Structure formats: structure tokens, C-alpha cells
């Protein structure tokens, strides 16, 4: 039996009012990828903070190399114990260079003066270990996200690394970048470094893991070898019950054309939209597929009026509407649920009821009708099943799935006829995901037109009636439901083969 490099015995962490981690025992073997799975709030992040000594456990023992360790903070964990963490929101200083970031806190000096040359040499050695060839003199802020992540992994390899913790490392990556990341992980494994890997994505878990530990409500439900892992089993362990259908798509009679956007063009910072035409019918669910940066979000924003297109026109029920701001898009009957709920979808400090009515404040004689506002919010709470005892509490205390429902309520309150859902399932639990897709199906069956933007193809393949694939700001093709397959979508998205069904 191999000696575990890291072990937790009955470790607990309590925050005011919650037991975040409850007597968790966990062993990590050298050179293994140990996936920690669980819903939001299951205690994964807290557990990782305990391992990397960002937080001090209230109870229990942590052993590294078979010896109990004392708690002395993250610097001690990395430099002495060799346990380091790659954060989900990358924790690099964007205004410093790659080399400066890699050596931060441990700079090489000569006679008390920083030695840039020595730092560069160290940086190059570290970058080589993560297969990244960038000039260490470049500013981190100029690197693409995937490269920044690689820099952060390199930083975690400083000193004598034994365990590297990665918190949802693929959340911001494209498929190819994910492949590259997995190669790096395989190489680290080959050097005997253990990876503790937090993930939401069930498909990843099966491919990558040697062992999987599932957490629920702060406790270890099960640790199982990857051979016994199946997505269904994982979901059941994570949620505590079986979910038969993640994508409950109802049968809906598809009606007349609701929205038609013709020849939308717009030069943008990330991608230039060129002559994009989109049609959405009543009751129809249309998917926008494409690689990151293909212009899916940009196209939705241009139609909605969040960004003003340079050319093109938008027709609703055959009548042209002038859209120069979100206000006009909303008045015409469009709604847009942003990808980043917290960043640009919700006013987090404001209470639920005020968020629900934000786009359509109920007025009486020019004065806000607080009673009506409350009633409106309560009625949406009941209709959409937003789990909260009161609608006067700040939106920020809700879970991701419930926050998403508040945004949905906001748009339904404006009587939106066409709703754009940008990555509707991002950052919400498996159970809440099924509920969200059920809700989307219901909205379509009530005769609304729905557009779903998603980077996760199974969502589109299961939910949509039609998929529009974008590539580099242009519409690369459309697929009807009978034509759906992952390969076809990817062919169009990457432009790899000619025989595409345009």
C-alpha cells in the first residue's frame, strides 16, 4: 500500500450558523488525481481552504507525509509542506510580469537588490513544466485566460510541490484548452505530484479521476475509484436522490415568427459580427453554439440593444423595431439573462422584490407602489419556486439557482416575448439545473421564443429545436433537431470539414 501524501482525519470547520465541513476524512495518494465533487455549498471550497491553510480547521488532524502538521498559513503550506492551490478566480497580479508573479514573495536578490535575471531563469524553468512558452517579461494582464491559468499552475509548482489543488480549473476554458490542461495534469502526475481537483462537470470527472470523493452538506458521502464512476451515480450521490431527466423538454407546437434579426453586423473588442440573421418562432427553443469568442453573447447583446449594432435590423412579429438601448429592446418585448448573474444581472444588495421589479417598477401617480411590488414578487416567488421565506432579503443570500429565477422573474414581469438565456446553467447545482431547464421549457410552451447560449453541447442538443452555430462572428450554419449531433455542431463551429449541413 502506498503511503498517502496528504491525509485529513475527522476535520471540521464551523462558520457562524453553519457547519461547513463536518468530520471529513480524506486521503490523497502521490501521483493520483483525486476529484472532489459536490453541489454548491457542499463544502468543497471550504475543504480546499483548510488543505491550503487559508482557513484553520476547528477540529481534526491534517497529515502530510504521514506527520500531523501545524497551522501556519498558506505560505507555510506551499513552501514547507508543498501543498498549493490554483484558484478559480485566478489570483495573479495583472500589473506585474509573468516572472514577477511567479517569484512573488520569494524574489531572488543579489546584495539585497532584486535580480531580474535570476527571476527570469526560475520563471522559464517553471513555465516549461506546464508546457507554456511565453516571454516571462510580459505583463500578466496581456495574456489570455488559459495562459494565465497555466502561469498560476506554474506558480503552484514553486519549491517542492507534492499536492496541487485546482478549483474548477476548466470553468473558463474552451475544449482545446481543456485538452491542453489535462496533458499538463498528466505530466504532473507522472512526476508523482498529487492533484486534488474540484469539479462540477460530470464528464470531466470520469475521464480524469483516479478516485472521486463526493461531498454533500459538508460530509463525505462516498469515495470511489474511477472505474465505479458513472454520471448517474455521481448525480445521485451529490444530490441525494436520482434525477431521471436533466433536460425535460416539453413537446410544443411551434408557431409564427416572433423575432427576426437581419444582417446584424458590429465590430467589437473580442469579435466582429458579420451579417448575422436569426429567426425565432413562438414556442421554439433556439440554441446559439460556437467556440468561446465566436460571437454568441455578442450577437444576443446586439439584438437586445445592450450593444448597438453597426448595421442590420430587428423585427418583432414582422414589425421593425428601433433598438438603440436595452430600454427599447425591453419595451419591444425582449429579455436577456446575462451569463454573469452577479457581474451584470442582479443588484446583489437590493432585496428580491426590488430586483424582480427593476425593469418595470410599479408606479401609482408616479410613486412606487410598494404593496403592489411586494405582491408581484411574492407571486413570482410562488410561480417559479424561488426558495426564500421573505422577498425583502437581499438577493445575494440566495443560491445560484434561486438568483437565476429572480432574473427570470424580472423579465417575465416585463412581459418579454423572446428571452435570451446566456449560459443559464452556469454555476448552479445539478438539481437546480434540471429545474431551470424545466422552467425554460415551460416558458416556451407558453408561446414565448427562447434562445439558449451554451458552451456545453448536451444542453443545446437536448433542449433546442434548432441550433445556430457561430464561427468567428458569422453564422456558420443551422441544424434542425433531426440533424443534431455533437460532431456536426463541432464541424460547423471549427470549420473543420466541408460536408456541413448549411
Amino acid at each position, binding site marked *: 500500500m502506498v503511503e498517502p501524501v496528504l491525509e485529513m482525519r475527522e476535520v471540521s470547520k464551523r462558520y*457562524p450558523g453553519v457547519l461547513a465541513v463536518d468530520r471529513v476524512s480524506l486521503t490523497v495518494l502521490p501521483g493520483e488525481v483525486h476529484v472532489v465533487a459536490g453541489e454548491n455549498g457542499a463544502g468543497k471550497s471550504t475543504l480546499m481552504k483548510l488543505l491550503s491553510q487559508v482557513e484553520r480547521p476547528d477540529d481534526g488532524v491534517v497529515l502530510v507525509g504521514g506527520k500531523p502538521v501545524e497551522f501556519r498559513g498558506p505560505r507555510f503550506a506551499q513552501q514547507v509542506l508543498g501543498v498549493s492551490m490554483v484558484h478559480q478566480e485566478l489570483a495573479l497580479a495583472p500589473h506585474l510580469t509573468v516572472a514577477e508573479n511567479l517569484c512573488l514573495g520569494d524574489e531572488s536578490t543579489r546584495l539585497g537588490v532584486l535580480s531580474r535575471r535570476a527571476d527570469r531563469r526560475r520563471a522559464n524553468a517553471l513555465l516549461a513544466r506546464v508546457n507554456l512558452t511565453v516571454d516571462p517579461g510580459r505583463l500578466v494582464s496581456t495574456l489570455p485566460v488559459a495562459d494565465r491559468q497555466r502561469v498560476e499552475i506554474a506558480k503552484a509548482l514553486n519549491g517542492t510541490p507534492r499536492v496541487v489543488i485546482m478549483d474548477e480549473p476548466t470553468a473558463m476554458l474552451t475544449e482545446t484548452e481543456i485538452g491542453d490542461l489535462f496533458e499538463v495534469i498528466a505530466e504532473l502526475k507522472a512526476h508523482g505530484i498529487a492533484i486534488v481537483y474540484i469539479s462540477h462537470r460530470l464528464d470531466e470527472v470520469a475521464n480524469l479521476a483516479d478516485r472521486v470523493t463526493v461531498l454533500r452538506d459538508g460530509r463525505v458521502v462516498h469515495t470511489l475509484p474511477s472505474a465505479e464512476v458513472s454520471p448517474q451515480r455521481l448525480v445521485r450521490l451529490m444530490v441525494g436522490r436520482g434525477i431521471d431527466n436533466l433536460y425535460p423538454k416539453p413537446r410544443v407546437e411551434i408557431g409564427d415568427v416572433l423575432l427576426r434579426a437581419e444582417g446584424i453586423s458590429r465590430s467589437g473588442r473580442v469579435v466582429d459580427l458579420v451579417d448575422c440573421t436569426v429567426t425565432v418562432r413562438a414556442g421554439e427553443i433556439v440554441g446559439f453554439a460556437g467556440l468561446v469568442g465566436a460571437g454568441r453573447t455578442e450577437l444576443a447583446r446586439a439584438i437586445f440593444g445592450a450593444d448597438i449594432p453597426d448595421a442590420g435590423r430587428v423585427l418583432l412579429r414582422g414589425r421593425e423595431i428601433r433598438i438603440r438601448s436595452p430600454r427599447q429592446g425591453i419595451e419591444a418585448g425582449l429579455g436577456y439573462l446575462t451569463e454573469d448573474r452577479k457581474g*451584470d444581472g442582479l*443588484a*446583489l*444588495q437590493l432585496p428580491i422584490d426590488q430586483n424582480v421589479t*427593476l425593469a418595470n*417598477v410599479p408606479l401609482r401617480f408616479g410613486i*412606487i407602489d410598494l404593496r403592489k411590488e411586494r405582491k408581484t414578487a411574492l407571486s413570482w416567488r410562488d410561480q417559479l419556486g424561488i426558495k426564500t421565506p421573505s422577498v425583502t432579503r437581499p438577493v445575494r443570500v440566495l443560491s445560484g439557482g434561486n438568483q437565476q429565477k429572480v432574473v427570470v422573474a424580472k423579465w417575465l414581469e416585463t412581459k418579454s416575448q423572446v428571452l435570451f438565456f446566456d449560459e443559464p446553467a452556469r454555476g448552479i447545482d445539478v438539481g437546480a439545473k434540471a429545474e431551470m431547464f424545466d422552467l425554460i421549457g415551460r416558458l416556451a410552451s407558453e408561446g414565448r421564443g427562447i434562445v439558449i447560449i451554451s458552451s456545453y453541447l448536451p444542453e443545446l442538443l437536448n433542449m433546442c429545436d434548432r441550433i445556430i452555430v457561430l464561427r468567428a462572428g458569422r453564422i456558420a450554419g443551422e441544424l434542425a433537431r433531426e440533424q443534431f449531433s455533437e460532431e456536426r455542431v463541432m464541424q460547423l463551429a471549427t470549420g473543420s470539414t466541408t460536408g456541413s449541413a448549411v
Partner: protein
Amino acid sequence: MSDAWRDRVRSAVSQLAAAGAVVVLFIYLSFASGAFLSANNLFNIGAQSAVVAIIAIGMTMVIITAGIDLSVGSVAALSGVLGAMMVVEYGVRVPLAIVGGVAIGAIAGLVNGLLVTQAGMAPFIATLGMLSVARGLVYIVTDSVAVSGAPPEFTLLGQGKLGSLPIPILALVVVALAGHFVLTRTKLGRYSYAMGSNVEAARLSGIPVKRYLTIVYIISGILAGFGGMIAASRVNSGQPNFGIGLELDVIAAAVIGGASLFGGEGKVIGTLLGALLIALIRNGSVLLDINTFYQQVIIGVIIWIAVFWDQYRRRAASELIQTSRKTP
């Protein structure tokens, strides 16, 4: 309904803390000084704090939108001297001159608002420029000599009484009620909180962000102008040096009262309590014969406590959220 009440109390913790501090100080001073509880002294405190409080109500709105208005002291001075000059040099009738002074404030606020929304400047920078420009204009038009010689009616706004109630206090009550109403029951108020909490979410919800932000800066300018006119009236002259550093008291009043410099939070009642607390400290120091320099130190320390408390509360809240997502 008990949940709603708990939410309401939770969202008013800062205001309750400020109220507690005011009560404690009030009780202490009434024992420590015989002169404190006299009607005369109390009205004096009210009148003194009225100017700061009125301007601070505008500042509260700006801070709620996650902005700041550093120019209020200079703008108040500009309104005061130009209002006084209208009366003294151009024979404008007093009520009209008051309106004129307020209009000057509105114009300064408009410029601030346009700099922020159209030129895209950070509020700190835009209003820092206005602080300097307005003060410079004051010295240019007055040659740094006080504008005096106004007729007695000019003193009515600052020194007059309605029954036994000093008019500045009355003006403050009116402004406070109006401010509270605007913040809680109008679109302007609601949108101010929404913009301060998340400006992009507000825009994507169809709120004309630039228009509403500009209006907020205009209101701040109007109240600075109004405060400046009251101050000029109190001393029956336009003082070029009035209001130097006033923005600090004004911001302090708002922050002590629970307005968050990160935006999205703040209440008129809190700001009133903040202004009152500052006025009590000033008055108490005089009555108890404490060196006036200590006042500054004490007020500074209270600002630290208020901001520290605000941050502590935030951090505690966000940690709780991260870990208690499961509890609905």
C-alpha cells in the same frame, strides 16, 4: 411578516448604531454640562448641523450610486457669494437671489454629472476638479473679500424663526422628508440604489443610467447651493472662505449614518444621525471646554469606526453566504 421585519432591522444596523451613539452622547452631555439641555443650545445645535445635514442628504444620494461629490464645500461657497452679490450689487430681491444661488449649485452639479456620465471621468476626479474650479471662481468674483451689506431680509433664511423653530431646522426637516421620499418611493431613488449596487445590471434592465446619474449630481449641487445660501444668510454675507473642508464633514455624516462608499446602501435618517453626532461632538467640546483640535481627532476616529464596522459587516455577511447557500 416577522422575516420581513428581521430583514428590515438587519438592513438598518448602521443607522441603529449611529442612533445609539447619539443617545449615549446626548445623555452624557446632559449630565456633564448644565447648559447643554437648554432650548437655546439645542436649537443652536440644530441650526449648526442643518447646513451640513442638508448638503449631506445630497451626498448620500451620490454615495448610494457609488459616486462621491468632493465639490460641495466650494459649490456652497460659490452659491453663497454669488447669491449675496446678486442682492448687494445688482439689487435682486432676496427670494429670487436664493433661487439664483441654488441655481448656481444646480449648474455646478450638472457639470459634475456630465463629466461623470459623458466624459466618463471617475466621480472622485470630476468633482475634485470642480472643488478647485468653484473655489477659484469664488476668489475671482470676490477678490477674496467678503460680500456684505445685504438688507436685513437676507438674514431671514439663516437666522429667522417660525414661532420658536429656527428656519434652518425647518428647511432641514423639509429637505430630509423630501429626500427620504425620493429615495424610497420614486424611480430616481430606486434606480440610485440599483446603479450603486450594479450599474451594468441597471443598464441591462433598461434604466437610462446616464440620465439618472446626472440628475443625482444636480441634486447634490442644488443642496450644496441651498446649504451655502443658508450659511451666507446666517452671517449676513457671502464668505469666500466658507466651506473649506466642509465636504469631509458631509461625507463623514453620510458614512457614519451607514452610507457605503461601495454604493447601494445609505439612508436619509442615518445621514441625519451622522450629522447630529458630529454637531453634538462639536457642541460638547465647546461646553466641556475641550480643545477644539481634539474635535477633529474624535470625528476622524468615529469615521474609522463606522467604516471598519461597515467592512466587518460585509465580510461577515459574504462569508456566511458562501457557506450557508443551502439554507434558503
